[in-house]
């Protein structure tokens, strides 16, 4: 596995042209970059997945700059990353279960039986088995967040990008969500590399996030210690 599955190389954020930002996200760690809306922190996942182009700099995901890849290769590369968007991004005309199955149906060669089996396992892991038939509008905010995380983990990626993952959750739910994203522990640390973006991190989770940074005026400041 790449030592740094996610690298930001001299990224310039909107509004801060004189403050290029660099960050190497170490494998098997949970890393949080926190900041207000004005800090530009919300753009980081979109830059990493090449959904938007930064004003300058580049982002390497598993050693590759997705922005330079042909469209279909970029789609395939994104499937190697779990992505939980800020507003959950669940499709409102699908049930939670169908939302989780969607990336598998469009991004894999699995058969329908294999997909149903995989979705069943993921829903059970995320305690969604009983509410899988609900549409997002009929689910609670916490269930929607779990479903969005379940969808992000559908391909069992080794890198997960979480945008505003803990907004509106209780500390207990936030802790559980973080543990699910980490995917358990290995000798090197967490099984997955987790990159968290948002305005804040609940104090109770600080011990479970190995590196914490605050983005201020385009520059990263460590929150260690």
């Amino acid at each position, binding site marked *: 596995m790449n030592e740094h599955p996610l690298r930001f190389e001299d990224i310039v954020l909107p509004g801060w042209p004189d403050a290029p930002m660099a960050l190497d996200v170490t494998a098997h760690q949970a890393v949080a970059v926190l900041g207000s809306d004005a800090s530009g922190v919300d753009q980081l*996942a*979109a830059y990493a*997945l090449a*959904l938007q182009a930064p004003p300058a700099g580049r982002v390497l995901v598993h050693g590759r700059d997705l922005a330079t890849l042909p*469209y*279909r290769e970029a*789609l*395939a*590369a*994104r*499937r190697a990353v779990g*992505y939980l*968007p*800020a*507003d*959950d*991004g*669940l*499709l*409102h005309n699908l049930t939670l279960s169908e939302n989780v199955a*969607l*990336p*598998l*149906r*469009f*991004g*894999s*060669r*699995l*058969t*329908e039986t294999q*997909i149903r089996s995989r979705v069943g396992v993921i829903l059970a892991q995320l305690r969604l088995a009983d509410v899988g038939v609900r549409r997002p509008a009929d689910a609670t905010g916490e269930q929607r967040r779990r479903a969005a995380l379940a*969808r*992000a983990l559908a391909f069992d990626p080794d890198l997960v990008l979480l945008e505003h993952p803990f907004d509106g959750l209780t500390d207990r739910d936030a802790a559980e969500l973080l543990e699910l994203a980490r995917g358990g522990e290995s000798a090197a640390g967490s099984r997955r590399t987790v990159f968290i973006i948002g305005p804040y991190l609940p104090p109770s989770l600080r011990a479970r996030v190995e590196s914490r940074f605050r983005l201020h005026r385009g520059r990263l400041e460590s929150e260690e210690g």
Partner: protein
Amino acid sequence: MAASIAALGRRATDAVAWVGALARFCVRTLAAARALPRAGRRVTTRILLDQVRFTALQAVPLIILLSGILSFLLISQAVRELGRLGATELIGRLMVIAIVRELGPLLTALAVAGRSGTAIAAELATNKALGEVHALEGMGIDPVQYLVLPRLGGAIVSVLGLVVLFDLVAIGAGFLAALANGMSGARYAEIVTDSLSFRDVWLTPAKGLAFGMIIGLVPSFHGLTVGGRPTTVPIASSQAVVASIVAIFLCAGLFVLVLL
């Protein structure tokens, strides 16, 4: 004067850029169709059937009404006026060329564009405004595969079916109009079948296919390319319906030019 010419030039370059972007979108849609995995095909087929229900089945009463009234009025007038001139056999050509071949596909396409084209553009623009398109791309799913392909397929199937329905109803309503105006049913049937050529038979579904593609692609293009804010949803719908109508008329003209 110079400002007017400059404005005209800008509009022309905008139109060329629009055609270019739409052409790229069409190519991207074709590529997306080829790359669709088997499990994805099941999902798109299910959405396609929903589209057919909304676009075709729910539009049946409208098409019957449009076709029936148009054909009844046109054939009633024609039987009377052409009868006076002793040229009732021209009713067959009128029915086949004007209604079956030209007005049938054109009016059907316009009705579907107005009814379902706006809905497709609004739905896709809403998907974009809600961040669903962004989320799909972030997950590595091509939004064209999930959102556009079923709507394109649904529009093609629906327009094809509705054009055939329009023509059948038109011929039936023409029959009633002929009877109401003193022409025998056998004579009407003889005139119409004599006027119907093989070209008319294949041209109708060919136009249905072309117009269906326009109604599937143009509103999808506008829905996905408009800005991702809720206020842009009505803009996308309005642009989509105008562009679809213009494209349908241009396409109808092209058919006439090529097959003249």
